[in-house]
């Protein structure tokens, strides 16, 4: 069982308290009704599936109930870092060489 750090509770809690909520940093278009088919497809259907670092949304559903973002390595399953919803994609990851 993984330990996940909730950036709101500011502590590591067991995986069972959390729920994955899909890929992060995909903003709902402000004028969604006016989106073209292609743009809507990109927003709604297309998701990355990398071998390595992925940016995800998680929710501390059995805790503070807040949504937040997490960087996870899909190879090792390790959480690289977590940060609050609305914060920008981190420019530099801890432990990364560049």
């Amino acid at each position, binding site marked *: *069982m*993984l*330990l996940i750090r909730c950036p709101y509770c500011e502590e590591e809690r067991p995986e069972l308290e959390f729920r994955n*909520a899909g890929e992060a940093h995909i903003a709902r278009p402000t004028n*969604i*009704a006016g*989106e073209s088919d292609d743009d*809507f497809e990109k927003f709604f259907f297309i998701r990355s599936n990398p071998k390595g670092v992925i940016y995800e949304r998680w*929710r501390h559903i059995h805790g503070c109930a807040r949504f937040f973002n997490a960087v996870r390595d899909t190879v090792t399953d390790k959480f690289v870092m977590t940060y609050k919803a609305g914060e920008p994609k981190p420019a530099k990851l801890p432990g990364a060489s560049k």
Partner: protein
Amino acid sequence: MNAAFRIPGAGRLSQAKTASFSFDDKSYTGIDGDTLASALLANGVHLVGRSFKYHRPRGFLSAGAEEPNALVQIVRDDARKTPNVRATVQELYDGLTARSQNRWPSLAFDVGAVNDLASPMFSAGFYYKTFMWPKSAWKNLYEPQIRSAAGLGVSPDRPDPDHYAARYAHCDVLVLGGGAAGIAAALAAAETGVRVILADEQAEFGGSLRFESGARIDGENGFAWAQAAIARLKAMDNVRVLSRTTAFGYYAQNFVGLVERVSDHLKNPGKELARERLWQVRAKRVVLATGAIERHMVFANNDRPGVMLASAARTYLNHYGVAVGRNVGVYTANDSAYAAAIDLKKAGVNIAAIVDLRDNPSGAVIDEARGLGIEINFGRAVVSAGGKLRVSSMTVQPKNGGGGRTIPVDAILMSAGWTPSVHLFSQSRGKVAFNEETRRFVPGTHAQDCVSVGACNGTDGLDATVDEAYAAGAKAAKEAGGKDSSVKAGKGAKPKVDAGESWSRGMLGAAPGAGPGTTVKAFVDFQNDVTAKDIRQAVHEGMHSIEHVKRFTTNGMATDQGKTSNMHGLAIAAEVLDKPIPQVGLTTFRAPYTPVTFGSIVGHARGALFDPTRRTATHGWASAHGAVFEDVGQWKRAWYFPKAGEDMHAAVNRECVTVRKTAGLFDASTLGKIEVVGPDAAKFMELLYTNPWEKLEPGRCRYGIMLREDGFIYDDGVVGRLAQDRFHVTTTTGGAPRVMHHMEDYLQTEFPHLNVWLTSITEQWAVIAVQGPKSREIIAPLVEGIDMSDEAMPHMSVREGKICGVPTRLFRMSFTGERGFEVNVPADYGEAVWEALWAEGQKHGATAYGTETMHVLRAEKGYIIVGQDTDGTVTPNDAALDWAVGKKKTDFVGIRGMMRADLVAKGRKQLVGLKTTDPKVVLEEGAQIVEDPKQAIPMKMIGHVTSSYWSQNCGRSIALALVAGGRDRMGQTLYVPMPNGTIEVEVTGMVFVDEKGERLNG
């Protein structure tokens, strides 16, 4: 009375305390501290089981957890018949009853042994080849035959009466394995004050110190030192010492699962004691001190009872005081078996000969053995063991061939070398590395915060082991935040090894006489009956990866997970492939390390505690009034209320008619309820639901539809606006949590600028639906402060006031098509208010009704149930709910999804009504609909029935269905093909009762 093979003065058990036990209904006497294995051996019993496939007689291979052969059934009572217990692990208690497995009619004469003679049939891959054809024979002939003939023990046939405990624990340093290495690591870590857990699978700590008679630490015999060290650790507040505890799984982030066997070793555990305890430990650092396991020699008939690992024989002698024979042969490829021969010889057992595959080995143990007058043969091999139910001889030949001789023996001790136990390390996702020089896999790259020490790390020698382990324990403690412990003299200082044993090397693969071209039964995997020949055959038949060889032969796939067989199997495959071992690869080690009971994993989560049961406030009343309940998710809901003599059909018919004639009371409390509050509440509702909300006046209600972003219906429910900034939202019963999740998601991440709070109020409000022409007359006398006249409180309105003196949110709404109300009261008052309403209802002949009647009444009106009439691919238009979509709205979740080409295309499945031509026929929900019943199979299916009931009010059956282009098919005849014939139906509108909706005010 001493058992025949118990040697006075040998071993550590007190011979005074005896325990009687039975094996296959024969009584024996053992002594306190024995395992079932040592007690049987003390009585000269070697034959304890039959093998899985060939039903060959089997004895004890080992003295520990790696045992592949000696699996027995332990019977405590009618309910407690545990199969596949390793006799080498099961501790003896007075009165223990054990039975052998996989034999009929008896252990000594087993009919299934004919498989041994027919063994060409059962060679590698036999499951895949022999039983291929014909297909039907698999189900009728092969599978039942295999299941009865093969297999291990028999499952208990009653519920497990024992209980199982569970603990979560956190520690700084978790030490797995309580031999010299584990104890040294734990001592070092404990001195720094960090929280330490030390676990070992055995009843007593010490690991191989149990048999290593030559080990001396801190001036004491090794085993005695271990006991003293454990006593010291136990006395420390920061240390938890767990014996009989197996670490079976190593998971992410140093999360380790352990099972503690709490009471399987006790005569009368009593009801208070759990049988086992599951420990789920999260450790900052893990020290793996899991030791090494001795390998057997792979030669013909190496499975005969009496043929065993040298270290096992040594354990039985030095710990349990038991000789495994009187005239013992030794077959080895390394030094460690010499120590066994020496110990046995000194205890008075004759050593017939030591057969050493090596050409000219030298060393102290060899000299010592020679000095004791033991015959030693270098460069020779045991090519076959004689005897059947017990080994009777060994045939010895020069290893390169040539004349042999047969030496009578009653036991053969063998050692091909030692395999580091990297199981847990590998489970932690660590990568093993092959050491070419010592020909073994040792821990390479660690993936987690753990360290391997001692034999499991390929460290040879007691001195080096203790050094390494002590340093690693201190380092782990420091990394976990412990004080820097300066090593002091005396208490807590590094243990000093005065004397120890050390050996490495040995051999991998088949021994001479069992090599390529031979067909002898030289077993690699005892538990799955895999021979060296099987592995070679698998390679010849094209299995070139060790993962394929493993699955084709089942080598290493039995419950012992190949602890003794993996390396031999790998070496044999590598030899045939002519590849170096690392290129053939090692199979993956998976949890559990040893079998884990379902009971320990399930713990308390069984029966009523398996899943929470949710009951509404009126549950007791409904039970008292004869309700039959149905499970809806975790809820228990009253399904129908049969009167004396009524079946479900009769009860539902009566309830349905009564509601439309007078009135009915229904508990709707399970509906999800969410309060949406805040200055931007209406704006939020506009975004989350298809409907317009800004202009809904406080005090009015609206039926809302929630979509997902893809444009499909996600949930629905009536929403009351209590105030400008306050909405009381209802959801489907099953949808409550996901709707809340969906709302929170948008509020927190997409619309965080909106000033809104969401609160689940499902359990705060009990909801009593009062529906029917008399509903107002039933409620009104109990209500204060609410004008319930049609003018003051029209259909789809909500009022706050009091009922029976308690606060109420009174909704005028209807899920039946009748004049109706839903009385919300604080849940604590739910039952009292229900009883008051019931009393009023009795004056008007009202009925209580359950979920079945609710379903029928709503279907009569064509009201949909999300999740029954919709399936996640239905749009509002498909469900004829276009009217509920705000046409002027520029945004709501799902607005863009709804515009997708496929969602507005012609010919989509639409919700319609169906009437069977024969009004008495009730369609089956889920039944498929076709246009032309005479077309060829497979027919083109154009839709399916979503809801179907007998409607007593209509005097006929009614149904709702999703049908392609359904609304353009009004009046068309369609067909529902069923196994017993085709049913003719007519496409109709969805409303079967009161099409104009006049009864809402009736």
